[in-house]
């Protein structure tokens, strides 16, 4: 048995009407959500959407102004001391002690989780192996790279095998390789029965990991559902084509408009045109015919499901607000995913 799998079944999280303000700023305006035992719930939203506030309330670090949050049936305010043993928290910034070694960090957190010393030592050794930090285990954490710190931080939140893992933007600022490693770990934990509540600005991350996604926007829930359900809200498949030179882009756009399948959405910055494919492959065929007739060459064309990115922009009525790093970041990863 792996060190991680020996754990109780995940607990449920139930949030009702949760509200919190900081001065005049309304961080949460009455939020309801449910995380089912053993499943991954993603809170998706840009910076300032209220994700971290929600997570801090659930992790007993912050008191709500109104509403309630229950973990495993226990109230996070009234039964905070009983809730804490159920939760492993990985915050937005790796909370590890730079002047302790990786191993010392884990053993300390283990003992503070009321494990006996020998038990903490065993768990620490097992987790160090799981997060591939065995070789660096006895080096001071200040010598660790950003990715190593995140992995150590995640290991620390797993030391007592909590039935609920709360991850606040676990992969923000990580390189793609480290991000993929963390995703695998998180997916494995969920497969082992841990409930995972994670916040993310990355649509790809929610799409990849979550069973359910809650889209949070300015303290309100903008939408929730499975990734597939959210995508379905935008309708069926689309034809998407890329024409990256300005000349070919305008010609392609004209040709797509001729296809008679409705009006396309144009994104000249990325040389991308999308069109609802109401007739599936027939729409694609019609577009191809028009392109041929106009002798336009495009870089890429295909049928696909709408991305969470588009769902997100649609739901939050973006455009009025500055895009901010959140969307810029998600754009990057999502462009990478599409260019198969």
């Amino acid at each position, binding site marked *: 048995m792996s060190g991680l799998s020996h754990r*109780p079944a995940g607990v449920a999280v139930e949030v009702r009407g949760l509200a919190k303000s900081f001065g005049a700023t309304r961080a949460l305006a009455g939020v309801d959500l449910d995380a089912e035992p053993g499943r991954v719930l993603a809170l998706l939203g840009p910076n300032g959407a209220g994700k971290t506030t929600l997570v801090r309330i659930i*992790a007993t670090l912050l008191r709500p102004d109104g509403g309630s949050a229950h973990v495993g049936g226990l109230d996070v305010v009234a039964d905070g001391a009983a809730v804490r043993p159920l939760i492993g928290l990985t915050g937005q910034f790796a909370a590890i002690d730079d002047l302790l070694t990786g191993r010392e960090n884990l053993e300390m957190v283990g003992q503070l*989780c009321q494990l006996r010393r020998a038990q903490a030592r065993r768990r620490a050794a097992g987790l160090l192996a799981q997060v591939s930090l065995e070789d660096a285990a006895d080096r001071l954490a200040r010598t660790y790279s950003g990715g190593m710190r995140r992995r150590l931080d995640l290991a620390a939140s797993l030391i007592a095998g909590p039935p609920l893992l709360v991850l606040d933007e676990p992969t923000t600022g990580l390189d793609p390789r480290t991000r993929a490693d963390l995703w695998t770990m998180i997916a494995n934990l969920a497969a082992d029965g841990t409930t995972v509540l994670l916040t993310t600005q990355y649509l790809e991350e929610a799409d990849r990991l979550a069973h359910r996604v809650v889209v949070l926007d300015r303290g309100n829930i903008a939408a929730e559902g499975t990734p597939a359900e959210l995508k379905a809200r935008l309708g069926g498949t689309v034809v998407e084509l890329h024409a990256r030179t300005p000349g070919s882009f305008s010609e392609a756009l004209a040709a797509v408009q001729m296809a008679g399948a409705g009006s396309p959405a144009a994104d000249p910055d990325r040389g991308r045109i999308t069109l609802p494919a109401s007739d599936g492959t027939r729409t694609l065929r019609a577009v191809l015919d028009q392109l041929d007739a106009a002798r336009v060459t495009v870089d890429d064309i295909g049928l696909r499901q709408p991305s969470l990115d588009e769902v997100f922009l649609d739901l939050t009525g973006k455009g009025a607000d500055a895009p901010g790093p959140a969307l810029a970041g998600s754009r990057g990863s999502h462009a990478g995913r599409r260019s198969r």
Partner: protein
Amino acid sequence: MSAATQPPVRAPRPAARWAVLADTAVITRRNLKRIIRTPRLLAVSSIQPVLFVLLFRYVFGGAIHAKGTSYIDYLLPGILVTATLFGATTSVAMAADLASGMIDRFRSLPMARTAVLAGRCVADVTRSIIVIALVLAVGTLTGFRFGNGVLPALAAIGIVLGFGFAFTWLYALVGMLVADPETAQLAAFIPVFLLVFASSVFVPISTMPGWLQAFAKHQPVTVTVNTVRALAEGGGITHQAWQSGCWIAAFIVVFGALSVARYRAT
């Protein structure tokens, strides 16, 4: 084993009552490791009290007259007390832990909540012991002697440490209120400067103007330094010792309670 416990899950037992001690020990060990692993910080912060001994002994010593004793015997008990105040890095360390997210981690763990503060204060007192040993060594080299026997000398050191411990709770509170390591360093020293210089540490209070004497005579640093002086060199101590003990207890109770309240509310 049938691992899959059915919800609703019974919470694992929250921290037991004695866990306060165990958790404090874990946090103390962590903080001591941090002190040992930043030897330069320890060295630099130890230089200041040593400089104070040398400067006051040789620069001001000729100009200041203490009744019935040599200036170094008058000075050193005061330096011991101030060394625990000036040398303390409690507020900075506390603010740094807040800034780095360590406090969030600790607060999310099923541990005794007072342990983070208690572990901080105990580690800092341990650190004071090192500084005190150094000051005593330099003092001895420059002419200081305990003139009142071993037990009173040990009691004197005990009071110095107790006083330092009491102040670490004030520092912890300042660190949490300021929450920025650099500001914390300066903020913590504001009350300390006032208490240290308007006291009997460096000069006899009788040389001060009357209005200042009223404050200087009864404030915690003066009564503690006078107690330590009396223990070290002999003389009537009961009155001042009683006052000193009250101050120490009051600091621990008041700032301990405020710190814990602040920690819970952070």
